[in-house]
């Protein structure tokens, strides 16, 4: 039941913008909970790397006195990776196109993260 609800939240998120290419919910220990990812993408790596990045982002924000971490954004030549907490124990990771409108994506991801936290 929860699995379906999480899948539904991610599908809705991916459908909310043509700029979103993939998304996943991951435990803070890097285990994949639910995902809507392209077939050629290694789920284990997405999970482990996302959780690691968010963990490091969390520590960096603390150490550099930036307060509680809200999100980690990575920009590559071919797109963005956005990670944010979905409750205390999970991470939502979103992959977006290079010319994505980030403002809209931030809002959609924030909403999705709140819904995921409620389900978990």
């Amino acid at each position, binding site marked *: 039941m929860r699995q379906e609800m999480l899948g539904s939240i991610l599908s809705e998120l991916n459908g909310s913008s043509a700029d979103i290419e993939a998304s996943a919910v991951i435990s803070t220990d890097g285990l994949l909970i639910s995902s809507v990812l392209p077939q050629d993408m290694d789920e284990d790596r997405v999970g*482990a790397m996302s959780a*690691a990045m968010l963990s490091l982002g969390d520590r960096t924000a603390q150490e550099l006195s930036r307060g509680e971490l809200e999100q980690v954004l990575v920009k590559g030549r071919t797109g963005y990776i956005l990670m944010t907490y979905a409750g205390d124990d999970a991470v939502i990771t979103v992959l977006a196109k290079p010319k994505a409108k980030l403002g809209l994506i931030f809002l959609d991801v924030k909403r999705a993260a709140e819904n995921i936290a409620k389900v978990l």
Partner: protein
Amino acid sequence: MTTLVGADREKDNMIDKDGNTIKPDFADLTRYAKQFSDLTTEKENLLLSIKSEIEPLLSEVTDNFYQIMHGIPEAATFLEGRVEKLKPTHQNWMHGLFTGPYDEKYTEAMYHVGDVHVRVNLPVEFMSGGITLICNQLYKLVFEIYSEDLVKAHKIADAINSAMGFSLFVMQKSYHASVDETLDKFLLITGMSKALFEKLSSTFNSTQP
């Protein structure tokens, strides 16, 4: 007191939440190492009993040891210009082998020796290799000294083997602790859990990056 000795405790942290090193329980480590090396009270007493015969020859063992080490290219680079400084420390340890006692203080000292080796980035195989070289020389000495009583010579060689095994066990423990400490510090700095680190590690073990 925090204990970090037995195999069932390997997953315990080597540093506290502030990044300070947690010292091992040396009494427990002494017990643990003695069990693995079979260093019994009888063997300890036997080693102490031959002190007067063997001690005058120990400096020769130290000299030979460094001479052999110098002939090993991988080891020679670590020894360059340091041998004369290292010899007294080595001789003190050799002296301790035949004066004992093999107690918490001895264990702590050996742990410290291992720790120093880690800090100078000495390859871990140098310790086991070095112990083998020293054992070979001590056996040779013992069989020369007690050539008339081979039963005793064998018993002494057995005791030396246990004492050297005990020392190596403790030194290697500090090597492993050092690796664990490095990992713990990394986890503390990055905020990652051990489970996440293991997940990352297994993910990147399975295929090439």
